């Protein structure tokens, strides 16, 4: 079936199978930053924004995206890089495989929460697993990022 979506600001028509999940559609369309770490909505690696809200693209059918607005990390490159610089300065990207989904969640959090506490930050990001870093360095980077005024 045919859907019309906006991906990173560009209107696109895509041919998708009825049972196709969004993560696969996006990867096939060239958005390699969308990664999968599980198939059970546990890891958060596949996080993109749908109409501005962080969404697990492994758990949503592409068919449902007709008329919606999708953002991947490629669509917020400047802001993502600003945060990635802090993350990298901290050494808190290791394999980096979880980073795009994590960054999309962090950027969404920054829009949604004003002056969050450590607990609120941790709560917001809990759905994003990372097997490499142990999370401490990520938290250090997030806190620095939140102090940076836009």
């Amino acid at each position, binding site marked *: 079936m045919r859907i019309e979506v906006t991906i990173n600001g560009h209107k696109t028509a895509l041919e998708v199978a009825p049972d196709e999940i969004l993560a696969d559609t996006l990867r096939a369309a060239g958005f390699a930053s969308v990664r999968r770490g599980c198939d059970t909505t546990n890891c958060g690696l596949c996080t993109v924004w749908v109409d501005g809200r962080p969404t697990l693209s492994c758990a949503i059918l592409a068919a449902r995206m007709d008329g919606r607005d999708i953002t991947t990390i490629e669509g917020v490159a400047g802001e993502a890089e600003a945060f990635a610089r802090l993350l990298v300065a901290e050494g808190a990207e290791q*394999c980096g495989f979880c980073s795009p989904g994590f960054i999309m969640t962090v950027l969404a959090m920054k829009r949604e929460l004003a002056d969050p506490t450590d607990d609120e930050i941790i709560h917001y990001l809990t759905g994003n697993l990372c097997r490499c870093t142990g999370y401490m360095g990520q938290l250090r980077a997030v806190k620095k990022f939140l102090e940076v005024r836009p």
Partner: protein
Amino acid sequence: MKIVGKGVAKIDGLAIATGKPLYTDDLVPANALTVKILRSPHAAARIKAIDTVAAESVEGVACVLTHKDVPQARFTLAGQTYPEPSPYDRLILEDLVRYVGDEVAIVAAADERAAQKALELIKVDYEVLTPVLDFEQAIDHPAVVHPETDLHCNFDIGHNRLRNIAATHKVEVGDVAAELAASAVVVEETYYTQAQAQAMMETYRAFSYLDHAGRLVVVSSTQIPFHVRRQLARALELPASRIRVIKPRIGGGFGGKQTAVAEIFPALVTLRTGRPAKIVYERRETFTATNSRHAMRFKVRLGADRDGLIRAIDVECLSDTGAYGEHAPTVFSVAGEKSLSLYNKARAVRYAGHAVYTNKLPAGAMRGYGATQGCFAVESAVNKLAGALGLDPSALRLKNIIRAGELDIYHNRILGSASLDRCIERGRELIGWDEKYPSRDLGGKVRAVGMAVTMQGSGIAGIDTASAEVRLNDDGNYTLLLGSTDMGTGSDTILAQMAAEVLQTPLDAIIVHAADTDVSPFDTGSYASSTAYVTGMAVVKAAGELREKIIAAAAGLMNAAPAEVTFDGAVLTGPAGDRLTLAELAQRSVVGPDRRQLAGYASHGSPVSPPPFVAGFADVEVDKETGKVELLDYVAVIDCGTVINPNLARVQAEGGLVQGIGLALYEDVRYDERGGLQTNSFMTYKIPSRKDVGAIRVFFEESYEPTGPFGAKSIGEVVANTPAPAIAHAVRNAVGAWLTRLPLTPEKVYAAMTKQPKERTCT
């Protein structure tokens, strides 16, 4: 030092963090076939018949391969230096399946949908056999996991196929029985450590194609490109010269990718069809059909005199290697070696036992490689001994641990560097040991602290070798060629830091290339905590050689002796004050006849494997109503010699500690009674999330390792070892009962707590 010791950013950090297409699955050719595997539903079965006709007729299917279609040379997938100590007990496909998930058939099709459909149409007629699932029952069980007669071992590893014994190992120094008999206090306990999943975020994956010369190219998310090439050559009966293995960016390994679980399947399909092929393991497949940490049982006896000097350590171990013996003998021996070497005041030590086959997921390499398991057992016993002697466990350790310059009883070698005593002292202060030990009853909860120490190695002594090449390019920059594998650890960066330090050049003047078996110098791969130490020394030597060549070349142009020329990294100055920039020299080295591009090349292997050390301290709260353990604070003080990059070392330590915390508290590979894996997703196999870890605090107490690059030792594995015994110790101090089986789930803690209420020691 200008660059070594600085927390510089990783050279590929920004690209990987922002999701650039650099990983295996991002690079697959568009027309690649999708490979899928039909897997056994039985823990043990013989395939009587297999019908692939319907599957082959599915539109888009390129081939369906069964045990009748594959080469018959047995091999091991363990990524170890040849000749591997692991038994050659595998075929690509066999008419016997040995665990739920074992490979039965390979399907390749134009797309996922066709491959999936074909899988469902393969008809297999199984004769279901009785499995052996309990590793404590494996030896002499009537069911034999490996009845085949063509199994091969490169060494005498004490393999006994008919008894389900994959490996036997024994080390004894001194007279253990006599020393135990003479000890004033003897503690004895049996400990169990469970299987743990590596659970790296990027699952196993590889793709393959034939190049312009008809050679097989395999691109894989692997820690061991050179070993993969050799394994493919053996399993596919192809000369290694016809194979090229390339490793792109890797989404985590943790030892899992030291076993080549996925590469053979697309490679075989490409050879059969001539077409590119890829395989991407699903998460479920990664849990059920790859490998995990070896589950182990330890019977420990410790003897000490009244003052707390440990006189004898006796450990008997049984290790569950599952259906295949990858890493079985070596993980087994490391469990003893790394935990018994710590206490060198002992007059006698013994470590012995077996690794056994069962009809379960094969075990393999995982961060810590047996030391993690051995550390839990021996450190728990040491804590128990402290209790029996009425001594503070940190004081007991300070009495008994090995120190720099002392002889290690296990290897009979002098220890080059160690600051473990300082690590213990500092950790005690940072956790607030004196105020908190052993525990405090808060009413509904009890708060308590516990500790453990550990060591690992740096590379494999006398076996593994790494090579490195540094070239001076025409424009005055350098290319550093490596065969090691950065799987997220930042090793490419720290190795470039070392080269930059020797050549006195900025980091961005170094181009790093790793790893491609056609181009890279040989390296055994990144495992055994070897990269910073072994490959690092190769880099230091190669860069040193290049530096000398640069000076000699400049001296030639200046008609001076090399000793008269100085080089500050950018400019060469001769005795008469004549100056030559590096860029000029570089250009001259490649222009015109009779020139020679300058390069340094070196190999390095080490006769020793200097241990890094950690002192770990846990501060926990146990809920008396539920038995739930909450980790509030974890302090690790680490001796990894010189810290090459403090930021990367810290994050690596934090990550390893969290994996150890997962092992301590809930990670558990569980089976049903038919041998099916129950924990086959992140729903059922829980790894720590950011809510589970409390505060993790990492500190370094540097020492200087004389055999290491700039004094460095390793850090990758050692950090995973202390959480389990330290947390178990804290739980003991909270609830008064020892827990001897990991993980420390609320059920177990509650049961232990209610069984022995009188033993509680609360202040």
